[in-house]
C-alpha cells in the first residue's frame, strides 16, 4: 500500500501535471474567495456610507449593524426565478452576465498582493490587465443587444462608447508610468516605487486623470449613464433577473475593486508601507494593499454621494477634448523629464 502511494506521488503525471494544477486551483481559490467576500461587503459599505452622508442609518436590521444584509440580498436573488424574455437571443442573453463576471475575476491573476505574492508573474502584466478591462464592454453590449429591448440597447450603446473613450486616456496614463519603470511587470512597477517614491507624488495629475477614467470605465457615478435610472430605467440590465442580474452586479463591483487595485499598484505603491519604519513595515504587504484599495473604493462611494450625473455630450467632451490632449501632452512632458532628468530605470 505504502509503495503504491509512494509510486503514485512520484509518478510523472502527478509531479508534472496534477500537483501544479492542484496548486493553481488552491491559489485561485485563495484569491477569488476574499474578492467575492469583499464584493458582498462593498455593497453593504456603499449603502452604509451613502446613508451616513445623507443623515440616514443605512441597512441596520439584518444582523448586528446590518452585517448580514449582503447574505440576505444574495439569498433573495438566488431564490428568484430567472426570466428569459421570449424575444431575446437566448444563448447570448445567458453568456453576457457570465462573461462580465468571469472577466472581472480573471484579471486578478496578475495583481501582486505582496512581494512575490502573485499568481502569474508575467512580463506583460499591465498589458494583460488593460486587455481584460477593455473586454468588459462586451458583456454589456451583448446583454443590451440580446435583450431585444430599446432601453437595454440604448444603455449598452452608451456604455460601449463611454468605455472605449476613456480607455484611450487610461492607456496614455499607463504609458507615463511605464516610461519611468521601464517594465510592464506589475511587481517591477511596485519595486521601482519602493526604490524611489510612490508615483502618486510625481505623477499627481496623471493619477487624477486615471481615477476619473476608472470611474467612467466602471460605469460609476457621475458617469453612470448606461444605467441612468431616470431615462433608461436601469440600462443594459433591465431585462435581467435573479442570478443573471446578480452576476452583472457582482461583476460590476468586482471590477470596481479591480480598478482600485490597479490604481493602488500603479500609483500608491502596491503592497508597500507608507514609510519604511519599524511599526509600519511589520504589517504584512497584503494588508497594506487591501487598506489602499479600500481607500480608493471609499472615493468611489464618496463621489457617488456627492456629484450629480454628467450629461452625455459633456462626458464625451471630457474624455476626448480634455483628457486625451492633456494626457498626450503629459506623456511628452514626462518622457522629457525622464530622459533629461536621468530617471530612466535600467
Amino acid at each position: 500500500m505504502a509503495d503504491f502511494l509512494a509510486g503514485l506521488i512520484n509518478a510523472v503525471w502527478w509531479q508534472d501535471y496534477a500537483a501544479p494544477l492542484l496548486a493553481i486551483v488552491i491559489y485561485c481559490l485563495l484569491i477569488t474567495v476574499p474578492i467575492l467576500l469583499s464584493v458582498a461587503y462593498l455593497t453593504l459599505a456603499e449603502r452604509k456610507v451613502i446613508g451616513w452622508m445623507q443623515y440616514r442609518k443605512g441597512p441596520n436590521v439584518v444582523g448586528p449593524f446590518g452585517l448580514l444584509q449582503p447574505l440576505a440580498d444574495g439569498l433573495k436573488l438566488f431564490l428568484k426565478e430567472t426570466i428569459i424574455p421570449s424575444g431575446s437571443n437566448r444563448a447570448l442573453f445567458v453568456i453576457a452576465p457570465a462573461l462580465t463576471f468571469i472577466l472581472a475575476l480573471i484579471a486578478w491573476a496578475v495583481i501582486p498582493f505582496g512581494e512575490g505574492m502573485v499568481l502569474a508573474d508575467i512580463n506583460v502584466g499591465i498589458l494583460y490587465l488593460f486587455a481584460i478591462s477593455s473586454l468588459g464592454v462586451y458583456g454589456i453590449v451583448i446583454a443590451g443587444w440580446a435583450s431585444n429591448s430599446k432601453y437595454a440597447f440604448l444603455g449598452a450603446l452608451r456604455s460601449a462608447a463611454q468605455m472605449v473613450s476613456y480607455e484611450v486616456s487610461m492607456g496614455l496614463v499607463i504609458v507615463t508610468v511605464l516610461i519611468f519603470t521601464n517594465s510592464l511587470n506589475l511587481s517591477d512597477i511596485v519595486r521601482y516605487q519602493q526604490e524611489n517614491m510612490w508615483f502618486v507624488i510625481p505623477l499627481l495629475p496623471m493619477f487624477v486623470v486615471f481615477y476619473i477614467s476608472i470611474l467612467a470605465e466602471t460605469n460609476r457615478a457621475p458617469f453612470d449613464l448606461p444605467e441612468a435610472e431616470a431615462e433608461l430605467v436601469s440600462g443594459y440590465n433591465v431585462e435581467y433577473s435573479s442570478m443573471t442580474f446578480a452576476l452583472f452586479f457582482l461583476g460590476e463591483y468586482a471590477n470596481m475593486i479591480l480598478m482600485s487595485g490597479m490604481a493602488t499598484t500603479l500609483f500608491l505603491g502596491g503592497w508597500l508601507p507608507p514609510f519604511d519604519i519599524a511599526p509600519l513595515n511589520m504589517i504584512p504587504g497584503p494588508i497594506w494593499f487591501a487598506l489602499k484599495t479600500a481607500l480608493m473604493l471609499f472615493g468611489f462611494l464618496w463621489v457617488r454621494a456627492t456629484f450629480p450625473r454628467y450629461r452625455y455630450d459633456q462626458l464625451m467632451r471630457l474624455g476626448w477634448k480634455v483628457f486625451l490632449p492633456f494626457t498626450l501632452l503629459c506623456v511628452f512632458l514626462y518622457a522629457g523629464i525622464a530622459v533629461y532628468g536621468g530617471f530612466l530605470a535600467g
Partner: protein
Amino acid sequence: MIQTLVFYMFAIITIACGFMVITARNPVHSVLFLILAFFNAAGLFLLQGAEFISMILVIVYVGAVAVLFLFVVMMLDVNLNEMRRGFVKYLPIGLAVGAVLLVELFTIFTAWVVEPAVISVNAATATPAASEVHNTEALGNLIYTHYVYLFMGSGMVLLLAMVGAIVLTLRSRDGVKKQRIMDQIARPASEEVELVKVSSGGGI
C-alpha cells in the same frame, strides 16, 4: 505535451470561428465569432512566446476595433433575404477574388526564406521567464532604432486617414446652439447669482 494540446485547441477554434464568420446567418453572430477568432489567434501568439503582440492584439483588435464593428453591425437593419438574392450573380467575382488571394498566399509562402540568425533566436517556444530579455524590449529596440522612419511613416498614414474621415463627415450647420463651457465659467457670479434673505412665511 500540454503546449501541443493547447496549440491544437487554439488552432481548431480559430479555424472553426473563421468558418462560422462567413456561414453564420446573423451578422452580429458573425462579428462575435470574429472576436473569438481574434482571441484564439492571440492565444497562438502567446504559445509562440510573442506575449507583447498577443496582448496588443487583444487590446487593439478585440478591445477597440471589434467593438466598433459590433456597434455598427448591431445598428444595421439587415434583411437576409435581400442579401441572399444576388448570391449566384456575384459568385464568379467572389471566386475570382478568392483564387487570386490563394495564389498570392502560395507565392509568398513558397518564396519565404527565414534568416538563419533568426531561426537560432526563435528556438525558445514558451513564454520567456521574467528575468530574460522581454520581447517588448526587443521590439522597442527594433522599431525605434532600426525602423524608426517606417514607423513614423505608418503613423502618418493613420493620421491622414483620420483627418480624411473627419473632413468627409464634418459639416458645419447654422443655428445650432452649442454649450461654450469657457463662457459659462467666465461669467462673474455677481451677475448671475443673487443672495436673498427670506423671512419665514414672507416669500420673495
